C-alpha cells in the first residue's frame, strides 16, 4: 500500500515537472471551470508566484477575458464553456487576459475538453501562449506605417505638385536650363515617392499568423480599375496597355486589401521595363478551380542567370538598374508575399531583351 502511494506520488511529481517544463501556460479545470491544476509558466505569464494562488478560482474571474475588439467574453461565449458543454476543441482564439498587476496581456488560447470513459466532460485543459510581444510589434508597425505615410508623403507630394505646376509653365515660361533641372528634380522626387511607398508596403506586410480575409472579387473589374490608374504613366512612356477579355467574368478568392497592390506592382513593372512603342497584354484564363492573370510585355526582360533571385528582398537585376536607376528591389518581394497570403501563386517566363510574362494564379470563388 505504502509502495503504491509512493509510486503515485512519484508519477504526480513527474507530471508536474513535465507541465512546468512546457513553455506555454497550462490550466486544468473541473466541469464548472474551476482551476484544479496549473503549471509554473501560467503563473509567470499572469504574474502569480505559484499555483496555490490560482487553483480553486474560477477561470473566467481569474482571466477576465476580452476579445480582439475589446469586448468582454461572457461565460456563455467563453472558449472554456464551449469546450466543456459542447465537447469542442477551440484552437488559437485570440484574447486579452488580466494579469495579477491589473495589466492586460495578449494570449492565444487553445481549450480541449477532458472526457471520461462515458465521454462525459469532466473538465478542460487550457493551453495559453503569451503573444503580447508579437501584438505590440504589430501595433508599432501599424503606427509606423501611419506616421510614416503622412510625414514622409506630405512634403514629397507638395514638392511634386509644385514641380508639376512650374513645369506646366502656367506660372511663367521656363528657359531650357530651368526646364531641364526641374524635370530632373521631378523625376528624382517621383523615384523617392516610389521608394517611400515600397517601404510602407513592406512595413504593412501582415503578420503571417494572421489569416487573410479571402472574399469574392471580380478580377476583370480590379484589373480595369488599375489599368485606368496607369493610363497616364503608360502614355508618358509610349506604351499601350491592352486587356484581352472575354464576356465572361471571373471571380476569385482574394483579400481586397492586397489584390490591387499585387496587380499594380506587376503592371507598373511591365510598363517601366517595356521598350517604347510596344504593347502590354493582360489576359485571364481559367483551368479547373484556378484562374490565372497573365501580363506580357516587350522589354528588357530578366537575364537567365538572375531569374532565381527576382523575388528576393532588395534584388534588382543589372539590366533593370541600367534601364531604370531608381528602385528599391522590393516590389516583387512584396508582390510575392502578398500573393502567398492570398493562397495564390506567381511565376514568370522571360527572354532577355524580348518578352516577359508574369502569371498570377488564384483559386476560383
Amino acid at each position, binding site marked *: 500500500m505504502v509502495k503504491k502511494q509512493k509510486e503515485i506520488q512519484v508519477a504526480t511529481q513527474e507530471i508536474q515537472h513535465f507541465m512546468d517544463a512546457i513553455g506555454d501556460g497550462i490550466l486544468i479545470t473541473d466541469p464548472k471551470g474551476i482551476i484544479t491544476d496549473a503549471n509554473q509558466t501560467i503563473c509567470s505569464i499572469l504574474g502569480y508566484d505559484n499555483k496555490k494562488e490560482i487553483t480553486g478560482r474560477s477561470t473566467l474571474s481569474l482571466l477576465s477575458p476580452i476579445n480582439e475588439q475589446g469586448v468582454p467574453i461572457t461565460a456563455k461565449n467563453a472558449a472554456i464553456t464551449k469546450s466543456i458543454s459542447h465537447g469542442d476543441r477551440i484552437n488559437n482564439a485570440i484574447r486579452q487576459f488580466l494579469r495579477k498587476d491589473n495589466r492586460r496581456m495578449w494570449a492565444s488560447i487553445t481549450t480541449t475538453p477532458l472526457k471520461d470513459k462515458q465521454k462525459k466532460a469532466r473538465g478542460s485543459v487550457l493551453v495559453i501562449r503569451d503573444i503580447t510581444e508579437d501584438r505590440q510589434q504589430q501595433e508599432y508597425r501599424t503606427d509606423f*506605417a501611419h506616421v510614416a505615410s*503622412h510625414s514622409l*508623403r506630405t512634403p*514629397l*507630394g*507638395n514638392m511634386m*505638385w509644385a514641380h508639376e*505646376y512650374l513645369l506646366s509653365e502656367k506660372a511663367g515660361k521656363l528657359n531650357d536650363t530651368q526646364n531641364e533641372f526641374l524635370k530632373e528634380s521631378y523625376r528624382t522626387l517621383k523615384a523617392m*515617392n516610389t521608394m517611400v*511607398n515600397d517601404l510602407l508596403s513592406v512595413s504593412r506586410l501582415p503578420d503571417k499568423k494572421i489569416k487573410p480575409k479571402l472574399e469574392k472579387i471580380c478580377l476583370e473589374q480590379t484589373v480595369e480599375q488599375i489599368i485606368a490608374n496607369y493610363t497616364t504613366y503608360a502614355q508618358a512612356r509610349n506604351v499601350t496597355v491592352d486587356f484581352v477579355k472575354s464576356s465572361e467574368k471571373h471571380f476569385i478568392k482574394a483579400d481586397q486589401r492586397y489584390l490591387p497592390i499585387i496587380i499594380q506592382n506587376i503592371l507598373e513593372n511591365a510598363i517601366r521595363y517595356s521598350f517604347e512603342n510596344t504593347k502590354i497584354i493582360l489576359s485571364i484564363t481559367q483551368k479547373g478551380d484556378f484562374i490565372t492573370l497573365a501580363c506580357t510585355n516587350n522589354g528588357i526582360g530578366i537575364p537567365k542567370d538572375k531569374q532565381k533571385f527576382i523575388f528576393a528582398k532588395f534584388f534588382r537585376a543589372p539590366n533593370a538598374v541600367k534601364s531604370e536607376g531608381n528602385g528599391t528591389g522590393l516590389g516583387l518581394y512584396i508582390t510575392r508575399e502578398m500573393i502567398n497570403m492570398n493562397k495564390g501563386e506567381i511565376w514568370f517566363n522571360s527572354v532577355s531583351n524580348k518578352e516577359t510574362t508574369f502569371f498570377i494564379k488564384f483559386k476560383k470563388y
Partner: protein
Amino acid sequence: MPKNKKIMIVEDEPFTLKMYTHLLTEEGFEVTATPNTKEVVRLAKANKPDLFIVDMMLQDGDGFDVIRELRKTTEFKKTPILVLSNLGQEMDINEAKKVGADKYLVKSNVRFEEVIKTVQAMLK
C-alpha cells in the same frame, strides 16, 4: 469646366493649402479654407460650398469626424466630399467612405491634374 463653383478645403498644412487654393482658383473655382475642424460646419453654412476637400490628419482632430459632422448637417448631407490625404491604407479609405466620403485620393500618388479632373467629375 464648371466655373464659379465653390470649394471648401479643410487642410492644416500651410504650403499644401496655399497650393490647393492657387491651383483651384486658377481653374476658376471659388475657394474657402480652414485648418480648424471645429469651424468647418459654421463656415460651410456661411459659404455654402458645392464640394468639400478634406484632409484626414489635422492638428485639432481628424477628417473622419469632420465628414461625420458634415453628413449630420442637413444642408451638407449630399454635398460631394473628396478626401485628399496621405493616409493610404485600405482601412483608412474604407472608414472614410463609410462615414460619408464620396471619393478618396492619396495625395502623393496622384498628379494635381487628376485632382482637378476628379473635382470636375464630382461636380457634374
